[in-house]
């Protein structure tokens, strides 16, 4: 017979357990998802929302409903029925256009909007276009009902359609108000460029060991402007592109003809056109209202932008096209000087490394510099060679710093233009301990040269003390006088 005590001791824990079990239910309740919205996918939510029912129909029609029911997280900016009613009927009936339209409202990840938010974010939509989410505004559309949750993301209701603008390149190629000449030149810059990314290899060259590709697969057709200046198709960036009206384009390019004298007018014109074109774009968010009077091109050339000359602006998805009556970029801004470190020579007339001294020196003011000295080389007219590229046909002034700090006597050396023995510039006396820049003279390049050699030439004798070559740097400066 158990005593009451025993019974109590046995029962008490049991009771406790019972209480715990009971309370368990409550605990479970507190962590269960009660919001029915969170049990439904974005697709179901948008379809259930009365104000966005029409958009939901378009999503289903475009086939993108599979995206919105998937397990990834998305944000949908759903235009309300009034906004969708304004959609061109042609879009709804063209499957490709419809898909493009719908994907302009969907982006990956969950993005909430806060009215008090000061930060702004460019969101890339599924069609590749970017729209700016800032406070309670998406692009140019007001968010009327924000941050509505669903199982796989969040959606917002917006009051107007988001534009699907062409990007800068598409605008230039397709917009009828783009002036013809510059456009034609830009469109003429398509070239086939070697690119093995998608190439099909059909063998290996037995002589070189290099792969042989199936003809037609080893190159891509691309535009030089995309490659060398800016890829105006890039949606993730913002550009300002200046398109000159035909007369202005002609005037601008012709003003550069003298700097590109070649054997034929076609080559000259093509070089001059490229010279003008390459500085007619800048990176940055510019509109007709905020563009300053000078912007910098990719090549750090100042582009003067006169307000009166802005004839028209076209907003593109990734920037602004400015149609200009005139953009006058002076050659002084375009043609930069060459500053050649003498110790970085490209070639030498003879192998004299055993007589070559790469020196660390200090100016009298204590500024460190490096130079090169070739001493006791024993070669009459020994020379070091340097390459400069893209040399316009014009006048130049030449300078050097040559420090003779090991002899108390003078010697001579010269700068050979285009050939080591050129007499265009004379032999110059190098006096002891002269750390300043020495003017060597002026010379003219008659014809444009894609590449040209400059020589540092020793005196025409074989005496060690009179035929050294020494130089810190050579500076060649365009002369516009």
């Amino acid at each position, binding site marked *: 017979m158990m005593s009451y005590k025993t019974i109590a001791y046995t029962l008490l824990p049991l009771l406790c357990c019972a209480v715990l079990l009971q309370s368990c239910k409550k605990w479970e309740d507190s962590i269960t998802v009660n919001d029915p919205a969170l049990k439904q996918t974005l697709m179901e939510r948008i379809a259930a929302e009365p104000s966005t029912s029409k958009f939901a129909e378009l999503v289903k029609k475009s086939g993108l409903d599979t995206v919105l029911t998937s397990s990834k997280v998305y944000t949908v900016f759903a235009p309300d029925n009034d906004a969708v009613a304004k959609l061109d009927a042609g879009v709804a009936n063209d499957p490709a256009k419809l898909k493009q339209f719908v994907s302009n409202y969907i982006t990956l990840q969950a993005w909430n909007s806060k009215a008090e938010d000061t930060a702004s974010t460019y969101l890339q939509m599924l069609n590749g276009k970017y729209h700016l989410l800032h406070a309670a505004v998406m692009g140019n559309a007001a968010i009327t009902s924000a941050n509505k949750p669903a199982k796989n993301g969040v959606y917002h209701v917006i009051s107007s359609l988001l534009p699907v603008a062409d990007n800068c390149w598409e605008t230039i190629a397709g917009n009828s108000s783009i002036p013809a000449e510059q456009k034609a030149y830009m469109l003429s810059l398509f070239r086939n460029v070697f690119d093995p990314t998608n190439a099909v290899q059909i063998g290996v060259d037995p002589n070189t060991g290099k792969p042989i590709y199936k003809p037609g697969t080893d190159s891509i057709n691309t535009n030089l402007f995309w490659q060398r200046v800016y890829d105006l198709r890039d949606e993730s960036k913002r550009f300002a592109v200046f398109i000159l009206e035909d007369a202005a384009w002609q005037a601008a390019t012709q003003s550069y003809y003298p700097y590109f004298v070649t054997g034929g007018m076609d080559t000259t014109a093509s070089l001059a056109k490229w010279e003008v074109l390459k500085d007619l774009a800048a990176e940055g968010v510019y509109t007709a209202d905020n563009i300053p009077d000078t912007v910098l091109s990719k090549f750090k050339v100042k582009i003067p932008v006169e307000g009166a000359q802005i004839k028209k602006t076209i907003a593109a998805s990734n920037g602004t096209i400015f149609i200009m009556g005139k953009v006058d970029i002076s050659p002084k801004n375009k043609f930069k000087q060459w500053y050649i470190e003498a110790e970085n020579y490209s070639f030498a007339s003879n192998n004299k490394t055993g007589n070559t*001294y790469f*020196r*660390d*020196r*200090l100016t009298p003011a204590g500024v460190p510099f490096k130079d090169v000295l070739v*001493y*006791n080389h024993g070669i009459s007219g020994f020379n070091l060679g340097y390459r400069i590229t893209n040399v316009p046909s014009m006048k130049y002034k030449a300078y050097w710093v040559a420090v003779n700090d090991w*002899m108390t006597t003078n010697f001579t050396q010269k700068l050979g233009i285009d050939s080591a023995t050129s007499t265009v510039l004379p032999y110059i006396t190098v006096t002891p301990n002269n750390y300043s820049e020495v003017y060597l003279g002026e010379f003219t390049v008659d014809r444009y040269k894609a590449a040209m050699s400059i020589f540092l030439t020793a005196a025409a004798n074989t005496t060690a*003390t009179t035929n*050294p070559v020494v130089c810190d740097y050579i500076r060649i400066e365009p002369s516009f006088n």
Partner: protein
Amino acid sequence: MKKLTILFLSAAAFCTVLSSCKKMLDVMPGDELDQSQMYRNVYDADAAVIGIYGKFQGLAERYVLLNELRADMLNYTDHADEYLRQLSNHTVTADNPYASPRPFYEVILNCNDVLKNFDVMLKDKKMKESEYAVRYADITCLRSFLYLQLGIHYGEIPYVTGALESVEEVKDAKRFPKLSFDALLDTLIRTTEALTYKDEYPAGASPNITVDGYPTGKWFINKKVLLGDLNLWKGNYVQAATWYRQVMETAANNSNDATMLTMYKVGWDSNGDVDHYISYSRGGDATSLVWNTQWRIMYEQAANTKGYEREWVWAIPFDSRFKPENPFVKLFSPIGGQYLVKPSQEAFDNWNSQQQLPNSSAPAMPGLPYDARGILTCQNINGQPVVMKYLYNYLNWSTMLPVDVLKRTSTWFLFKQTHLHMRFAEAANRAGKHLLAWGLFNNGIAGAYPAPTSDVTNYHNTLFEPYPFNFDARNSGNSGIPYYRAPWYRNIGIRRRANLQNYAVAAGADSTLSIENGLINETALEDAYEGTRWPDLLRIALRRNDPSFLADKIYRKLKKDNVPGAEAARAKLMDKSGWYLPFKF
């Protein structure tokens, strides 16, 4: 009844277990020695000595950090923790583990224990008198060296010579009152000078043998260098110079002529692996600096080479094949290490304000405008300045890539012949021998006392000076009559060895102070990051009673490296109490 039986039986069993316990528990461990198995003969004594040095190696990282990071040539990187930053900025808090004196005392108490047992062995005739004296002196000197370090960094410290059971007992201020630095120096000099044996271990006998390619002789402290140092700190300049001179003459009777003429004498040998010059294969061509031999090689060459033997007085190897592990890769290397410390801008500025010798042959151009030892001491790896001295056995000098990431061999560079000459010169300078001191760190004794051009009969060098300042560096030249080459004729001088122009004593300047400034700075350029910069600065600041000597340099380091608190550090160091670390166990 049954119950009783069970009780009885179990009690009996228990007793049996208890009684057998004693024997059962007395089994000797298989892989460790019991106290009773130690100190039985002289080989056990050697094992104890090696054991002490093994423990001592554990202090290498601390030694370099305390002596360099607190000074002006080393700074912390972004990877360093708060405690390393404190060392550099002189804002050390009591809880800083790098500032704890405990690891020093652990080794000191080990030394005390070994010394006690040596006494017992001598009494029990387990060691001969001569064997005892050699080993007793070594361990006593190492202990004195550790106490000197403690004095340098903590100022006042408890001096313990007895064997204690626990390091905690050091805390007992009643038993071990703190000694002032000055009183500590007196005690250390007394103890160390009293030793009957002050030479190196006799060569060829344990423990001075060759192990795994390492001659072990250089592992052990050089007692005479220590005695020189103690006397130099104390201000006994002639006594200090006497001890240093004895070390400089270590090879005076060496059977190998080249060794006799060069070892510890900063002498030339016409062999790049021994000369340790700053050298250019084409004088004046900065790109032709010699890397694969000459000055840099002393930080890479093997311990059994001639160059190493003649250069290094005290150096302990860290080999990837045995413990303890090399701590320097962790400290200095951005590749495979943590890159915690880097050279300061102040250090670079110092190297870059030196002037090399002009090219002697045509083209006779002026020398390069910097000290090339800076280039060989510090390199840029991936845009980060790195102290390379301790890494040359780990990173290839040409590629700056690890030869083998897992093989982290290095050496704890404690003392080399340039230290020795610089300290001797410091003592000589203070003893009034200015020209001799100047010559040793510039272009050598022969440079300071040039030979007459024709008749060399009465050419006396410094032979007219009393010992230890009488050097015979005479060289009659090829045409001199009579023809002779004196033992010190090859002494080249430290700046000449580094291809630098002589240090100029400004006209009208105080010779003693000017030469001393030059000496201390030369040690910085030559022996950077080898653990002597802070002691050097402190010693001079103490000697001149001039805190600014120390404070200004630290200030410039912090200022140039844009570390906040440079002014506060200077203000702290302008007061002597700010020189020492908090003594907290």
